């Protein structure tokens, strides 16, 4: 006799495009105590991200953009201020908001397929067959179907980041948080991934917060580019980028946007040496 009938969703259900989240960041501040004293990594930062929006945060290193991403992920807690996803406060990490790190952070004891399956195995109410089907779907989406049995160390840098992307997408999060995921890749691989990421964003309808120090990358990917300044970390200016998609990083229109953003970025960042004096 069955004591409880479990609800069970199929792979097709699991693969459905779900509503993306909206994010509300209000008055968030965060201090770090470093070797050279306390650093105000974020100083009263407020930011709203709409459902399904692709937002890029740009700024020099040390401007707190990665800290903000970690706070949205729930990996770090703000000293003050609130962060909400769909009106609910973010209290810790959760698979609604998955992160893609700069380093691939793939698990070397699992093969490619095992890595993509990792987050899916933590999702209840799925059969193993569903999980396999879903993992296969996302590996196909990032173009790595042929490599599902490969070991992580056998992949190139770009392939590793594709696996990371598939792993982050597989549990079907509402928000994708990306922390300079392409910074360590060569230009050609990066360009391919810009195209793929735009295509996947449109197909899967996610809210994406993308951190980068590369202005052209930000202009190429984001609906909105938010410029951060360091010491203390603040969001200073926003740029809407309304070019048609898919965008080409080498297009002239994009370069015009990038130039504007760069100008703003430079005006907010004092030279390092002067700041230290």
């Amino acid at each position, binding site marked *: 006799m069955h004591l409880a009938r479990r609800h069970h969703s199929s792979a097709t259900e699991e693969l459905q495009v779900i509503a993306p989240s909206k994010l509300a960041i209000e008055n968030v501040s965060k201090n770090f105590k470093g070797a050279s004293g306390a650093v105000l990594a974020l100083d009263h930062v407020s930011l709203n991200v709409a459902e399904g929006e692709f937002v890029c945060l740009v700024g020099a290193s040390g401007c707190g953009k990665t800290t903000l991403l970690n706070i949205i992920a729930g*990996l770090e807690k703000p000293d003050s201020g609130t962060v909400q996803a769909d009106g609910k406060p973010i209290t810790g990490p959760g698979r609604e908001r998955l992160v893609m*790190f700069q380093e691939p952070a793939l698990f*070397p*004891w*699992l093969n490619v397929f095992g890595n993509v399956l990792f987050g899916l195995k933590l999702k209840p109410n799925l059969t193993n067959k569903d999980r396999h089907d879903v993992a296969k779907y996302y590996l196909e989406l990032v173009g790595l179907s042929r490599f599902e049995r490969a*070991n*992580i160390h056998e992949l190139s840098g770009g392939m590793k980041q594709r696996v990371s992307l598939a*792993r982050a997408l597989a549990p079907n999060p509402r928000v994708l948080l990306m922390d300079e995921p392409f910074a360590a890749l060569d230009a050609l691989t990066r360009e391919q991934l810009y195209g793929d990421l735009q295509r996947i964003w449109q197909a899967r309808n996610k809210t994406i917060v993308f951190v980068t120090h590369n202005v052209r990358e930000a202009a190429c990917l984001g609906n909105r580019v938010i410029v951060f300044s360091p010491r203390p970390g603040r969001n200073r200016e926003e740029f809407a980028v309304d070019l048609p998609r898919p965008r080409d990083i080498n297009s002239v229109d994009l370069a015009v946007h990038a130039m504007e953003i760069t100008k703003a970025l430079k005006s907010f960042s004092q030279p390092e040496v002067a700041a230290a004096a």
Partner: protein
Amino acid sequence: MKRFLLAALFFAVLVLLWEAAYRAKLWSPVLLPSPGQVVKYLEGAAADGTLAKATVITMRRLLVGYFIGIILGLPLGLLTARWKVFGDTIGTLALGLQTLPSVCWVPLALLWFGQTEAAMLFVVIMGTLWSVVIATETGVRNVPPIYRRAALTMGSKRLHMWFKVILPSALPFIVSGMKQGWAFAWRSLMAAEIFVTILTGFGLGQLLHYGRELSAMEQVIGIMIVIVVIGLLADKIFFSPIEKFLHRRWGTSQA
């Protein structure tokens, strides 16, 4: 196949050199028996069952003690890595006792447990335990924080985190600790068996010891060969496949 032939040739040459040394009468035949005499002893010991019996007794002591050592060592290592208070206490104790050659436990074990199996098990456990504790602790401490963070965002926590992220990530360290523990346990068991008569059963070490008492050098050398072969088999059957898997997955192999 070529590698096998080459290895076979190498060992054949070794045996021939031995035979030549025997024929040249460099040493008295009492001190250096011929390969043939050793084989004859081994055949005899195999036929009357003494060899099998001694091997079973020794292997049982080793395996039982070894697995108890691992089963105790793994959780202790996790505890020392996870909580400072265990690291400061058990971790320091493990570090200290690991430097103690485990054969040093023999006198104490004999006084505590008498000339019994328990004494032998105790020595083997002491040989295994501390290496496993320290290796597990080091392995856990070396888990890249980003693995934990990535797993956290995917909803892994507590036991799942320990079993599916931290332990697998620490596996290369743990396996090398297990290998070291095996070597320590094997050496200390042999030392104990050679120097102490254990009333509950005659192991390989005791056979070797009686070979010396009887001045039966072919027995001493024969048992030494058996001990070497057991060590080799343990490596080939148990550790090699695990290490091959680790090398393949982590990409650390040169070959």
